[in-house]
């Protein structure tokens, strides 16, 4: 596959936008990613199993014994709210950005300095309160040109003088082929993605290449549960919805009978397809997650919003099935497989309802 070709990480001037510039126009995913509606959908699509989200990382730290605390009801509520807050922090999705553009700019040309040094000099402003992305880093070439440093030089110098824990100055070989493919074949997805998050900036073309390769591998192998309850599941869902390849994930949700997740995925797909970047002006509504507006329209009018809780399960299930069926008929690629899965689900749930009814009748007689 084209994206797995080895790239030298010295591609200073290349604007590698192969992955995120597909489609009709080269759209910028960051215009959609930071919208609160998209963020809420990405959070809801995650399984959020507390055991897996809060699994401790082995970082060589001294282990502490667990604490057992007596709590009042108020303390318990406070603790629950704190856990919810920490859950959101742990499931923060890594930002999805388009590939970065070159930032080299010549500041001055001093031909009289030629021959003074035989190597390039890099200068960095190491003030601690600056953002690494914005701090000034300049380069003096041997021919006397003073210019701003390119992204590759910036990454190296930042790591030397202001090191980030877990990051290396040079890109680890595990992110080059064939080692990356070997890691993915061993299904170490979370390990690769976690390390990519630490090593690269989100708009680094190497980060986009590594994460795209990982998501493609997960999608091909259908091993979505490996990323469930991690921060990367949201990024995976965004990637698939952005590239209009949600069919496999949709099938996965239908087979697990998670229709609400399937509906959320379709909603995310529609949000990302809209021509206008989503603004945060209009606040999100509760009913939005089950809209069944037309496939091509980007309007936000919810004609069939989700029923209130007083309706029976079968009614809301019916609404969800309508939404899914609408997507399958109009937008899906794997139409027969999805229709079959939906039919199986309907058959199963009808059987289940029939068994429950008979159970209730039998209990009533007793």
């Amino acid at each position, binding site marked *: 596959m084209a994206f797995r070709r080895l790239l030298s990480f010295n591609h200073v001037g290349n604007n590698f936008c192969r992955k995120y510039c597909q489609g009709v126009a080269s759209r910028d995913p960051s*215009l959609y990613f930071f919208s609160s509606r998209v963020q809420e959908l990405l959070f809801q699509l995650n399984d959020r199993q507390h055991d897996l989200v809060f699994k401790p990382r082995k970082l060589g730290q001294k282990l502490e014994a667990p604490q057992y605390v007596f709590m009042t009801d108020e303390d318990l509520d406070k603790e629950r709210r704190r856990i919810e807050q920490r859950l959101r922090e742990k499931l923060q999705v890594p*930002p999805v950005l388009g590939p970065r553009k070159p930032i080299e700019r010549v500041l001055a040309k001093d031909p009289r300095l030629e021959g003074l040094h035989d190597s390039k000099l890099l200068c960095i402003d190491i003030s601690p309160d600056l*953002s690494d992305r914005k701090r000034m880093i300049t380069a003096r070439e041997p021919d006397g040109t003073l210019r701003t440093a390119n992204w590759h030089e910036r990454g190296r110098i930042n790591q030397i003088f202001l090191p980030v824990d877990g990051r290396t100055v040079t890109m680890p*070989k595990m992110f080059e082929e064939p080692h*990356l493919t070997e890691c993915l074949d061993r299904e170490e997805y979370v390990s690769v993605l976690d390390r990519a998050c630490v090593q690269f900036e989100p708009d680094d073309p190497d980060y986009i290449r590594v994460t795209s390769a990982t998501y493609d591998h997960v999608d091909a192998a259908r091993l979505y549960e490996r990323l469930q309850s991690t921060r990367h599941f949201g990024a995976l869902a965004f990637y698939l919805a952005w590239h209009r390849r949600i069919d496999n994930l949709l099938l996965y949700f239908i087979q697990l009978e998670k229709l609400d997740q399937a509906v959320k995925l379709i909603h995310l797909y529609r949000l990302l397809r809209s021509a206008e970047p989503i603004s945060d002006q209009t606040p999100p509504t509760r009913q939005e997650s089950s809209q069944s507006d037309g496939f091509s329209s980007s309007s936000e009018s919810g004609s069939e919003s989700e029923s209130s809780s007083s309706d029976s399960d079968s009614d809301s299930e019916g609404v969800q099935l309508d939404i899914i069926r609408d997507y399958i008929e109009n937008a899906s690629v794997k139409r027969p497989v999805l229709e079959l899965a939906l039919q199986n689900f309907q058959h199963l749930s009808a059987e289940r309802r029939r068994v429950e009814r008979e159970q209730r009748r039998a209990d009533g007689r007793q």
Partner: protein
Amino acid sequence: MQSVLRLAGTMLCRSTARPCLSAGAALCQSAARPSPSAGLRTSAVALAGPVGAEPPLELRPLNKDRSNPVPVETSIAYLQSAAYRATYGSEPVWRSYRRNHKGHIPPRKTRRTCIRGGQLSTGNPCPACRDEYLVLDYRNVALLRQFVSESTGEILDTSRTGLCQVKHRELLAAMTKAREYGTLAFDVPFRVYDYNEYKPSAA
């Protein structure tokens, strides 16, 4: 001179005279039998294995020659073999090793090296030197994992493993390479993003 390696530890009574390597289930056909006074030895029943399975493992005399290093592919195959299982079972290779020293507190550092001039030059060599088929390489993940703490992810110190200093440094080099090439998965710190740094500036 003893033809059989005698281990100080008593727990593992099967490693005194190590069975042959059976990489690919081929046995080395060494003929010499250990003497009756050899001390602890692997039980013949344990070596024999189930009836009708692979041919039974044999004991062979100790080989002190380390001038021909074993290729890493052989070592990887050895770790999956019946010979390895009979010798070490499911425990790490260093578990049964006990250092010999004066007094009840061991010296802070283990010995510098067990191998001099291409030969084992000590009695009671360390766990990595005594078995020439244990090669510390970044590809030999099954072996490297035995030297990583399960609870904290740290590389175990020589005070626990008993490795000589040269082998410990080889282990550290192999671990660094394993992390570089990604053969051994390990945890990295959780990165917190400040979204304000990455949001597109308002158009």
